[in-house]
């Protein structure tokens, strides 16, 4: 029998975060996300969505609490082993964070090259993905010459190129029209069907309403599960209950 905890890609137990000596921006956050699950992370501006994502992609360490990524306790995992965990996490940053001196091709190729992929494989995968997001004619374009929407698509392509186990996206559809937004959401759903767990932080209530997925709702640094959300929310709730039980 498979243990549900083993099936979790990421688990937070009573995690809190503060910057320096400031107030806690996240308080006692506990949740567990199963592999191949799909969640929206919603909440008002300043609720701590980006901070939560930063903790999830290991850009920050929690002030207290336990973060487990792919079954590894981050606090006790040797630093040299963290890059291997990070490679399994795709991130779409809110401000894209494309490298301005590299072409769209090289930006998307970056995770593959960092992982040591062969150049012929890099070329094949990158061209295919950039074609899919409608940027086949912009392979050599530098980010500053691309529109906001095009940059966002390059950022998304970079995040999904390695087919990550966990994809974290911070407002991934913020700068693109509804048609392209839905197209990209379908790309995320396709990835999700292939086994990638997905968390999308968004303000776009319209998008959340149109897609059947559970919600993680952040408000004032506290996380709550939106029980009214459609989709696999009960599974998430079960994981939460189990996390609390394990913690106790």
């Amino acid at each position, binding site marked *: 029998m498979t243990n549900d905890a083993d099936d979790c890609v990421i688990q937070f137990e009573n995690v809190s975060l503060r910057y320096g000596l400031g107030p806690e921006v996240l308080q006692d956050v506990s949740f567990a996300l199963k592999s191949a699950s799909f969640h929206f992370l919603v909440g008002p501006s300043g609720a701590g969505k980006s901070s939560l994502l930063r903790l999830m992609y290991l850009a920050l360490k929690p002030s207290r609490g336990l973060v487990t990524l792919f079954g590894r306790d981050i606090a006790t995992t040797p630093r040299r082993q963290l890059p*291997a965990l990070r490679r399994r996490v795709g991130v779409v940053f809110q401000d894209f964070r494309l490298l301005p001196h590299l072409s769209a091709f090289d930006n998307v190729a*970056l995770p593959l090259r*960092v992982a040591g992929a062969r150049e012929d494989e890099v070329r094949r995968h990158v061209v295919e993905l950039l074609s899919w997001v409608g940027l086949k004619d912009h392979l050599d374009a530098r980010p500053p010459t691309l529109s906001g929407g095009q940059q966002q698509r390059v950022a998304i392509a970079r995040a999904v190129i390695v087919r990550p186990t966990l994809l974290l996206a911070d407002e991934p559809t913020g700068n693109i029209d509804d048609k392209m937004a839905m197209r990209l959401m379908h790309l995320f759903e396709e990835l999700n069907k292939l086994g990638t767990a997905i968390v999308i932080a968004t303000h776009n209530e319209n998008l959340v309403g149109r897609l059947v997925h559970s919600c993680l709702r952040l408000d004032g640094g506290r996380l709550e599960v939106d029980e009214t959300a459609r989709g696999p929310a009960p599974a998430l709730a079960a994981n939460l209950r189990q996390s609390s039980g394990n913690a106790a």
Partner: protein
Amino acid sequence: MFAKRTDLPLDRDALSRYLPWLIAFMVYMAVLALAGLLVLAAMARYWDADVSGTMTVQIPPTGSAADDDKRVRAAVILLLGEPAIVHAEAITEGRLMALLEPWLGTAEVSADLPLPRLVDVEVEPGADLDMAGLARRLDAAVPGATLDDHRIWLDRLVRLVRSVEALAALVLALMCSATVGTVVFTTRTGLAIHHDVIEVLHLIGAHDGYIARQFAQRALTLGLRGGLIGLALAVPTLLGIGSLARHMEAGIMPNLTLTLTHWLAIVSLPLLAAAIAMLTARLTVTRTLARMP
């Protein structure tokens, strides 16, 4: 030469343009210091080997050439009677004049100056010679004769040479430290300038070594470029100094020409500077990245 795809735009840094010139200056100074060090070491060895096995007996003039000849012969006979002495030969007046010519000129001086007579003595290498006893016997056989084993002035000379040698080694060490300091400063500045790019690489799973390698390769290229510029400027300087040294008329000075081994050591300096730059950059980056989560 080391053109490789890099994720960091390091070649666009203003500091990258200055680093080769800073390293060129340091390599230039280091080449001169090393050449001086090598030549001085050779000089000290030459004096030690060439002069330390010899002695000079000085016989004061009596005013009579016949008496002087007799005293010289007596001294030579006494010296050759010593088992540790393999050769003793009176220095002729002509050779004495030739030795004094650089200082006194070619004018007729022998008539006016009461020059002592000299006996050149060669001691068997490693022989145990009782200098004090020999000096006493010599003074008894030839009153006024003195024995000079060159040790006093040779020691002073070698001490001077060793001091200058130490100074050259210190300059060399300072140049290495300055190179390390310059590269540390440049690399840290590069890390600060490219912090955003480095963070992205870090977050997509790049090992510290992946990022450090890019800085190290850049430092290697710039270090090598600067080193070669420094060497190219230093070689004509060395040749010029060598040419001046060859024109010096000093019998005591050994041949100051650099040997093939010396040149190989000098040519290796740019490589050493590049290696120092590369290792320093790599260490600086890995130590800085270790502070990231």
